[in-house]
């Protein structure tokens, strides 16, 4: 199991924290799956995707540090965290297909989160919104890759 701690999305910082937890969760899940002997055929892809999610986390942290401005710290009141929680209980002994099915759900949930977060971020930080929108699309592109396994 990958340890994640998803906050209520009531501030922009909390939305970014939620994103960071999603990325940490996804990176950890891929890392664990890459070690599964029965999913060895997908190990290279899982390692690559784990690195991608780590990189996205770093980019989110940089964005938070560089761009946050107190003038636009408006409370966020319309995001329900329950809709975006991912399952971080990585299945043991999964083969490549089962593993792909599991992470596909993670990517879909993340995509849904980023699409909604991008809309909210639009009034706060244009670049943040664009980045989240891009990440959501990336999640869906990963789903396509996973479908090929």
């Amino acid at each position: 199991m990958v340890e994640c701690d998803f906050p209520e999305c009531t501030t922009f910082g909390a939305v970014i924290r939620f994103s960071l937890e999603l990325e940490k969760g996804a990176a950890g899940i891929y890392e664990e799956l890459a070690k599964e002997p029965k999913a060895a055929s997908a190990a290279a892809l899982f390692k690559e995707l784990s690195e991608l999610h780590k990189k996205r986390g770093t980019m989110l942290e940089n964005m938070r540090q560089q761009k946050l401005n107190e003038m636009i710290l408006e409370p966020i009141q319309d995001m329900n965290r329950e809709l975006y929680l991912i399952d971080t209980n990585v299945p043991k002994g999964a083969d490549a297909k089962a593993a792909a099915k599991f992470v596909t759900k993670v990517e879909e949930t993340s995509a849904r989160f980023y699409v909604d977060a991008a809309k909210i971020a639009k009034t706060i930080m244009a670049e943040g919104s664009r980045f989240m929108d891009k990440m959501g699309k990336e999640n869906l592109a990963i789903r396509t890759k996973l479908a090929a396994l």
Partner: protein
Amino acid sequence: MALLTEVQKNYGKLKNFVNGEWIESTTDKWLDIENPSTGAIIGQVPMSTVDETKAAIEAAHEAWWAWRETPPIARARLFFKLKELMEQHFENVARIMVQEQGKTIDEARGETRRAIENVEVAAGIPSLMMGYNLEDGAAEGIDEDAVISPLGVFGAICPFNFPAMIPFWFWPYAVATGNAYIVKPSSQVPLTMNYLTKIVEQAGFPPGILNLVNGSHEVSDTMMEHPKVKGISFVGSTPVAKYIYKHSAENGKRVQAQGGAKNSLVVMPDANLDRTVANMLASYYGCAGQRCLAGSNMIAVGNVADPLLKKWLEGTKKIKMGYGLDESVNMGPVVSAKAKKKVIEYIDGAEKQGAKVLIDGRKAVVPGYEKGHFVGPTVIDGVTPDMTIAKDEVFGPVVSFMRMESLDEAIDFIHSSPFGNAASIYTQSGRSARDFRYRVQCGNIGINVGIVAAMAYFPFAGYKNSFFGDLHGQGQDAIKFFTDRKVVITRWY
């Protein structure tokens, strides 16, 4: 959601930083530093002596001339280095600020960014402090130059509400222009500047160029009275700002003394209410209302009052209070038990004068943080211009809801205040916005913006009783405050 980790549980006894060394004060007066969210004591700050302050001034004075002779581009390099180090320590600075001041982590990150921005602007000093000249400016064959020169030693007396940003409104510009500096942080929140000074030390600034002296009015008075101090920058309440201005001027100092505020936010009938409410929530409740730019009076013009109040109450009820190291928290406590008592007294007073408390934060308790100094978001309806709550600075998360007939009435009311720090209008009408920015006598005007915080490259100060002095903080005003113009007329035979 788990709390972010505290940098340290306890910071022990703080030292002063003088002439490049960390020195323990010899004073027998120490104050506890309290975490306002938990009530825990997280360190002790010395009330440094007059002699210790004088030693810091002498050290700064001894250091400044060699620093003045250091080329501006070389001085700028240290600010680039400092910026890089501040980026590395960004999260620690923000978390220490939450611990000692009570603001939320997002607010603290925003403030840390503001401090860094001042370093970034100061790093442009070779361009910013250039003088000017005119060939044959005096007469044929006689040229005239205006040279911009530093003056010596300056000092800052800082408040509790922005422990990182406010010292950085001043000292980077003073030091970049070739002066030496002494910062006296607020004794309620000295940890952030203590940590930042360690970063400054690491960046390699020469000994004596930036000094940190913890303490109370004895330190301030010594700085104001010492003949080797050329100027004082201050931010705090209006009565103290008046005293600082008068006392420093009597002693021949330059002064910039920023005082209190009573900011009104005016909502016009054509305002976009959803966006307006979201923005104003940050203004009134951000930093628990302890910004000098926080909204205090909310003036609803015409028929917008009822729909605005309805939305405002809905938004207010969703504000989550707690320890700012929980990233989902919207609002932290006020800074101390004394501050909480004062805010509650204002709410009591408003009620006695006939206003109606619609949302009452007086008895707010955050589970798990019963010793914290929390005042919940408070909305008071039926506030009229003659009530104390409409006139005095409350410095807490309290909204005085007022109804007026026209923009003219709102502007007249704003002008009736002895303060002139900030005022905002929410409207979709360019005409109303133009009228507002043109007529309102405040140092900071917001158009659909409720926290009118000037960026590092713009000047910051209020009008009237919100500011005593002429040159504002930050930007070009800061360069002028910390330098003088010297005219050189040259003739060669």
